[in-house]
């Protein structure tokens, strides 16, 4: 009944669910809470419990799909399809990134449910984008018999959206990473960082401009290394946090304490009219 692939997934899923229950009970869960996803009692630490249960459910689901598809094995598929011969498998026309991005989006949605609304919404958008990409790809792969033409059809439809969106994301990512780098550095360090970064960008530009016959692979490699450096620097800087920035403290007793009231200098007659009717 169980195929080779499904055993791994179902085993992982079961283990994750057992661990989730154990984790729930050892972190404050009560009664049947960890077994009933909180329906009959507390589940303990929400974050860890949710992660383990999500991982378990996903693994079990994938395991069941693998059982149904018989590990996508040719003979099994032929048996499933009721044919004598296994269908020939066409070579893939391209690398499919959608599952990777889909998993990333699903992860964001699950984590977002626990950690923050923003992450949840971003996850939904990623899933929506993956859905659209996957749908168009599924259609365009069968649009004609020519894989190149199919690819062109797909690009014609999606590139006008993908290119500006990707450009925007690159800008946002770069600005976000640069800002984290500058905010975590000291005041003088920030100057050094921005000068070095600017000089680096300038040097790369000069290199590309003066070497028109540079291999596309080298160009791509340099850009990838630079992008990874910026992103890694941004992530490390974000984790390190901002430097201490001095703020002038307001004298006590001013405002209602929620920080939303405008600062009024001392000695100001607050009952004075701020608008005057024209005579």
């Amino acid at each position, binding site marked *: 009944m169980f195929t080779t692939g499904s055993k791994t997934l179902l085993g992982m899923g079961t283990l994750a669910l057992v661990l989730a229950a154990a984790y729930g009970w050892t972190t404050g869960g009560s009664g049947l809470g960890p077994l009933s996803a909180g329906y009959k009692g507390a589940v303990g630490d929400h974050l860890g419990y949710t992660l383990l249960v999500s991982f378990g459910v996903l693994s079990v689901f994938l395991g069941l799909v693998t059982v149904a598809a018989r590990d996508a094995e040719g003979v099994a598929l032929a048996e499933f399809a009721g044919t004598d011969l296994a269908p020939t498998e066409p070579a893939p026309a391209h690398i499919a990134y959608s599952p990777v991005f889909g998993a990333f989006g699903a992860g964001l949605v699950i984590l977002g449910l626990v950690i923050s609304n923003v992450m949840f919404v971003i996850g939904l958008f990623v899933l929506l984008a993956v859905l659209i990409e996957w749908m168009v790809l599924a259609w365009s792969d069968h649009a004609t018999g020519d894989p190149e033409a199919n690819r062109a059809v797909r690009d014609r439809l999606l590139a006008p959206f993908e290119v500006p969106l990707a450009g925007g994301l690159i800008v946002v990512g770069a600005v976000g990473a640069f800002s984290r780098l500058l905010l975590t550095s000291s*005041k*003088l360090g920030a*100057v050094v960082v921005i*000068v070095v970064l600017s000089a680096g960008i*300038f040097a790369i530009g000069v290199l590309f401009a*003066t070497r028109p016959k540079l291999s596309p692979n080298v160009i791509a490699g340099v850009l990838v290394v630079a992008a990874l450096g910026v992103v890694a620097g941004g992530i490390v800087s974000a984790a390190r946090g901002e430097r201490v920035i001095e703020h*002038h403290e307001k*004298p*006590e007793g001013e405002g209602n304490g929620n920080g939303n009231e*405008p*600062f*009024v*200098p*001392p*000695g*100001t*007659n*607050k*009952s*004075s*009219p*701020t608008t*005057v009717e*024209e*005579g």
Partner: protein
Amino acid sequence: MAARSSRRWKAALLAPLVLTLAACAESAPLDTLDPKGPYARAIDQLVDPVFAIAGVVFLLVQFGLLFLAMKFRNRKDDDGSLPPQVHGNFKLEIGWTILPALVLAGVGAGSVFTILDLADTPKGAQEITVIGQQWWWEYRYDVDQNGEDDIVTANDLVIPAGEPIALTITSRDVIHSFWIPALNGKRDAVPGREHPLTIEADEPGVYRGQCTEFCGLSHGYMRMRVVALSPADYEAWQANQLTDSEVPTDALAKEGMDQFRTSCSACHLVKGDGGNEDLFKGALQVSGAAPDLTHFASRGVFAGGIFDLWADENDNLEIEPEEVGQQLNVADLKKWLRNSPGEKPMYPEGLRGMPNLGLTEPQIDALVAYLKTLE
């Protein structure tokens, strides 16, 4: 035709000469290139080399333009053909890319380090709050640093010479900009925000400034002065400012005090027995403030800094700080009391500025006598 051409040539030669001579003004209190303190000097030391570099670039470009225009001008025997066209000179392109980049990098580095230097406020510097409103400046000193201002003055920002002063600049109504060019750069005064600025004067003296953010009718008349005193004089000034007014002994001044309590208490405050603390409920202005006049006669200017309050024995209004108190500038003070909106553009019907109080001449005389006692 020839005469007209000659006139044009003369005008072309005279214009730069006039501009050059105009830069040689002897009395230029708002000169940005004449620093009188370390912070203004830091700016000046950045401006000078940048200006020199910009000047060299300007001359090179202009002479280059002139040279090319002359060399390739349309001649009578011109056959219409183009000179040899230059394209794709790699060395030149690299050169004119890298050289400006290096110049700009140098200017940028100098600018950043100067900005960082100017942003540093020395620890222990005396703190003064500067508040702009239409159309005058208020200065508040928390001498004992207990969170309450002990000295409130207007128009003259009095500081000790040779010491850094940490200003906190804000506004009560619209955006103004505080600027004493001899002591530091400009800093906006924005309602609801507090902007820091550090100033320091090398020597005792008077350093003038001007609001540099358009703020309404009398923006051009919204002036300020920094009066830098020697440490001993500053101590004495501070001690005097911490005292309250007393009831005048002179009969006319006493009459003026009564008039002040009747006519001026809606906006102005004078602390002490000789004042109106019992009547004053806050200034009836859109900004919510009017100048505190407790030590009016200790200042050098009034009406937002547009009139000098004191003159020397020869009625000369250009006086030194130590000459304050010698001879009151009665003429301008009376003009102001007689019809202040006539002396300075204001909008008193909209509670922005001082109204014409309709005072009689005897009332004005009494008020002048009283104000003179507020030392």
